[in-house]
């Protein structure tokens, strides 16, 4: 079928070449080429064809996912694909937006064994893990505790007489709950438990625990394991529970690279706990990238559909316009499109920084880690909250059809939304960043210079010397200049950090305990962190512009950068007004300029989502198809619904007919 005429027209009117922008997003033309090559391996492989998952029951979806996981293991080996990023491309094309039950085996289980074991342990376990001779997962979260790790209740008590650890789930709340792949798939788990030796609790440690019999896959004696039931999304994942009753494992199953328990029960302390920061930073950088991609996918669907859908009239007597021509629709979608681009650049930045610093970690230089750890906590929360809300706005912008599973957006949403809670609940993450900001602020007030992303706090001490307060700064903001807007965001962050710090001090002066004062200031602290993260995002986006060599691409990215920054000011106008960074008249100009930018971006909207270069398989959406043939394909899709299997549904014979007969 040919491409819908509206989309053809949209693509012809773009002012830049989408392929060039794709290269920027991928990190170079060579990487784009390789990505497409790998995607083609999946797309052209009949083994990976499958039924639309929307029509399957949860058990069937789980089974399909397991089938694909097994198949992927074989194929990756066959093609000799081993680079993590290339594996990711391959898997993403197989799975669309869905998780795989073996996902934690390849990520957390593998990575933990690789990084937290002794040489002897590596030798024993790594071949088993890499060869998928065992399947493992990472069991940290319990029913009663998530982000607050110290509260975990599972115990591992060392018994020197048998040189074993005895694992127990002493309460209902201590049952491991949520780990992916735990319910039905895995036969091993890395269990985090409070270590007791020689009568003392030594805190949380990790243990390799076999949970199912190799060969029969039956749970081992002392182990109760199962699936935690249906969820909002993640139908293919057997998130599980695990309860242990006096379950014994050998001493060697404790991961002992850092802390150790000697045969007689003597506990040897780890060198530095900062090292675990590395993994956390890595995982959070993945979530930032995921925020960018999920929002990009939702934008692609909503914008293409808005170019295809015609509704109502703008001008009397003329044909119905594309809904993308309505200002309200542009106002819903284009700021999100700009956000998607911003987050793509933030994701790339964190990944690069992580790789740079991990070089340092192996050489023992950990000086940058605390800031990076604090920054990624906040950015993880900031981007996932924004993307979460943005995906829903995209769905709403598709009207009634967005609500159908065929739009694909419900799946993007339900798969993405748990990232607001997993790997650190967002509010707690924001407060971690706030703790770093408060520390930096205190440093600054005591006369020390602070460095890195918080160096703007140094300006606060300089301003204090000047007699007039904030009001004097207003005139300088130029709303057409990204660099000037970065300064505006910087001032806002500085002001909110300062105000939170002062409120915190005021609470302390009321002779409240430190914890109480912190809690009574936490809403302010979260706002300060958000402002800090917002500043970082604007700054990174503006910095990216300088790297773009193609003039046409740079022009369109500059429009998006301006829209992102100005829309954020418009939405948070109160902060800028209250701090005197902008006047009411300037805010009115900002609002006006936002609307002008909508019209400027409009002709490039479809080309801008095309540049994300998602294959239809990645989108999983009838509304967002590249060819725009929406309505025909909705009908084709609906015919496959399970309710349509028979012409007359059995309910008619069972219930309707008897009722009508009786009446």
């Amino acid at each position: 079928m040919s491409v819908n005429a509206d989309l053809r027209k949209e693509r012809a009117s773009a002012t830049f070449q989408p392929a060039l922008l794709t290269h920027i997003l991928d990190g170079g033309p060579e990487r784009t080429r390789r990505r497409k090559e790998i995607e083609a391996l999946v797309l052209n492989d009949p083994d990976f064809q499958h039924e639309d998952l929307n029509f399957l029951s949860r058990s069937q979806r789980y089974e399909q996912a397991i089938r694909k996981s097994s198949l992927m293991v074989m194929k990756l080996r066959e093609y000799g694909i081993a680079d993590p990023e290339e594996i990711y491309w391959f898997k993403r094309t197989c799975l669309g937006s869905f998780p795989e039950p073996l996902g934690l085996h390849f990520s957390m289980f593998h990575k933990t064994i690789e990084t937290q074991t002794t040489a002897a342990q590596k030798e024993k376990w790594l071949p088993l893990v890499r060869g998928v001779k065992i399947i493992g997962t990472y069991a940290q979260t319990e029913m009663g505790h998530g982000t607050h790790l110290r509260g975990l209740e599972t115990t591992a008590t060392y018994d020197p007489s048998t040189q074993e650890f005895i694992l127990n789930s002493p309460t209902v709340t201590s049952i491991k709950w949520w780990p992916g792949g735990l319910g039905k798939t895995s036969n091993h788990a890395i269990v985090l438990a409070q270590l007791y030796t020689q009568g003392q609790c030594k805190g949380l440690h990790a243990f390799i625990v076999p949970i199912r019999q190799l060969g029969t896959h039956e749970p081992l004696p002392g182990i109760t394991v199962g699936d935690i039931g249906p969820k909002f999304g993640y139908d293919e994942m057997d998130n599980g529970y695990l309860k242990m009753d006096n379950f014994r494992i050998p001493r060697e199953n404790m991961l002992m690279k850092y802390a150790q328990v000697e045969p007689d029960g003597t506990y040897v302390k780890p060198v530095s706990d900062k090292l675990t920061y590395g993994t956390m930073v890595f995982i959070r950088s993945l979530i930032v990238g995921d925020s960018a991609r999920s929002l990009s996918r939702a934008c692609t669907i909503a914008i293409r559909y808005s170019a295809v859908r015609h509704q109502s009239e703008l001008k009397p007597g003329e044909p119905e316009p594309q809904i993308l021509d309505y200002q309200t629709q542009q106002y819903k979608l284009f700021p999100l499109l700009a956000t998607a681009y911003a987050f793509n650049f933030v994701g790339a930045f964190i990944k690069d920084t992580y790789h740079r610093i991990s070089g340092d970690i192996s050489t023992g230089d950990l000086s940058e880690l605390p800031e990076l750890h604090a920054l990624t906590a906040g950015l993880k929360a900031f981007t996932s909250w924004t993307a979460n809300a943005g995906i829903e706005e995209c769905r709403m912008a598709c009207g009634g059809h967005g609500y159908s599973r065929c739009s694909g957006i419900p799946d993007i949403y339900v798969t993405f939304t748990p990232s607001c809670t997993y790997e650190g609940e967002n509010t707690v993450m924001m407060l971690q960043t706030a703790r770093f900001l408060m520390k930096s602020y205190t440093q600054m007030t005591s006369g020390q210079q602070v460095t890195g992303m918080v160096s703007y706090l140094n300006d606060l001490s300089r301003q204090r010397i000047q007699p007039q307060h904030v009001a004097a700064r207003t005139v300088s903001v130029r709303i057409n200049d990204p660099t000037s807007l970065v300064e505006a965001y910087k001032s806002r962050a500085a002001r909110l950090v300062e105000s939170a710090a002062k409120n915190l001090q005021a609470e302390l002066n009321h002779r409240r305990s430190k914890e109480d004062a912190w809690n009574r200031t936490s809403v302010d602290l979260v706002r300060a962190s958000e402002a800090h993260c917002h500043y970082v995002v604007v700054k990174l986006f503006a910095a990216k512009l300088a790297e773009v060599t193609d003039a046409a691409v740079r022009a369109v990215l500059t429009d998006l950068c301006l829209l992102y920054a100005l829309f954020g000011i418009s939405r948070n106008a109160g902060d800028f007004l209250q701090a005197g960074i902008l006047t009411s008249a300037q805010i009115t100009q900002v609002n006006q300029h936002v609307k002008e930018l909508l019209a400027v971006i409009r002709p490039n909207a479809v080309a801008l989502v095309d540049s994300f270069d998602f294959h239809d398989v990645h989108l999983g959406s009838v509304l967002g198809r590249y060819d725009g043939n929406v309505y025909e394909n909705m009908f084709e899709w609906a015919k496959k619904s399970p309710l349509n299997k028979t012409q007359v549904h059995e309910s008619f014979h069972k219930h309707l007919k008897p009722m009508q007969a009786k009446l």
Partner: protein
Amino acid sequence: MALLETSKYSQGSVLGSVNPDLASERQTASFSVEKLTALLDGGVEQTRIRRAVVDAIESDPVFSRENQYFQTQNERYEAAVKKAVHLQKKMHEMGWTENGPEYKYIYRALSGDVAFLLHRVFMRSISMLGSDKQIAKWIPLATQHKLIGSYAQTELGHGTYLQGLETTAVFDTATQEFILNTPKISAMKWWPGDMGRSATHTVVFAQLYVHGKCYGIHPFIVQIRSLQDHSLCPGVTAGDIGPKMNFEHIDNGYLLLKNVRIPRENMLSKFCEVRPDGTYVRQGSQKINYFTMTSVRISLIADEVLTPLMKACTIAIRYSVVRRQSKLKPGEQEAKILDYQTQQEKVLPQLAAAYAFHFTNDYLQELFNRGYREIQRKNFDMLPELHALSSGFKAMITQHCTAGVEICLRACGGHGYSLLSGLPSLYTKILASCIYEGENTILLLQTARFLIKCFMAVSAGQPVPPSVTYLAAVKPGKCPAKSKLDFLSPDIYTEAYQHVAVRLISSTAAKLQDLIQSGVKKHDAWNQCTVQLVQAAKAHCHYIAVKNFAETVEKLETKAGIQKIMKHLCDLFALHGIFSNTGAFLHDGYTSAAQMDMVTASYLDLLAVIRKDAVPLVDAFDFTDKSLNSALGSYDGQAYQRLYEWAQKSPTNQMSPAYERYLKPLLHNTLSKL
């Protein structure tokens, strides 16, 4: 009461006692929960009737929702049909009638989990749009369920914009029939409930053609399935539109018509008629059609929008006192998460909004009843105001409550993501309300059109409806508050809201006029101002909601602590609105930067005050455990135990074939080496 208490506990078998963390919350209530429940119900007698209905429904196993989260779409549909059929019997047994006082509680008691809801819309549309003769013919058939009706308006290509519908009905004088057709794919009827599998008849909206001339959209009764064997009628293609985010129990359908002929008498002809010779006649006022839309928009607020938010608040708040996490003070027990300011700031404003909109709904109902009385006297003067308010509030309340349910969901952390928490289903259901019965952005623009018109009228010294007279009293000035306590004065914050609404409406009106005067065409000018117009409409509704809440509180009886706690909620609702939209209030200097700090301080203080009554405030909503259907939010607070018990019932815990088929081969070739 005793009966009710037992039913509250009945769902979790092992679970006898109330979790002490929840019990302690109930001992310190500052007001009488029972009295507040009666206030919400509209009187003690109403509470009694509601509880009796709920009890009768919940004690009947056919209506159980116990396995809902584990069922497939087909199973859900079948259960809903079974319940709908059983409900007829039940109503007969209990002596409930459609006009009786019990009727309105049935839907709430079923949590909407029943089929044939569109059958009622079918009947209502015939009653409103049909001639006396048509009513006499069809209504008895429908009442006795000799047929099952649906209502087919929305098409694949068009929703809220009705004039764009493409289905055609061509009158054939020779046979005195209408010939119905779906001329292209986008004209296919899409989404109507009960149509995919159940309905035998439906009211189809189509463009009427007589002698080659198009007369616009009209309603026609079309039979689509056989009354004998339920097979599709000739020329009809119909089916289910496939899985959605929710409403798995409803067979939303598609319908394709190919030269389907229906007799002339099947066009609903209260207002328009086609005579045998093809003459088209209009009679009576069609304004009443607006009134129908208005009535639907108002009627959905209570059951479809407020109930889900109230349930979500109940679940999130109860869970937040049962869940303990981290320590607030060293050496102490872990703190209840509701003691964290950030958690309070998530859930308590939602609780305040639930109460605020409950009273907004009362206000709209009253206005509607008054309008209805006037219309019966052939006075249509109230229609524009009613239409504007019902559109704007439908949009505002659905949007606010949908966001509120999602906040509650996320406030429950990971466990909120489990279907067993009950929250995902509440969310996916309520969010449909932002689209059906008029897409929200379009509705807000309708309200805005009314506001701009009224503003112009006021400027020209003409009279306007009561809800917008404030536009005439524009007084520039500054907020007079001097301390944070001043912001607990309804006069202060109501006036601030009024100021913002006036500013947004007047500045948008001015912008529109400027554009038109500078030569921009009217419709272009309108499109260029729509973002501002939407904001103006929201500000207007927000102002009315705040003002109405404040006025309601003033009239409440001071006994039993009810007025005091409602005043706190009203303050919180108002200050939360300012706190989350500070720019609007700071703009033009009405509120100063220093005053904004006072707002924040007062707002945060209020959270701690309402925190103490949070559990009693959700208890007052009086939802049974069965209606919450949540492992996290039950009355006894045994969240973890229940979560564990329910999970074990999941069908996924039966042995999966995946191991034998896929995992074993994957592991197998190397097993021997282990």
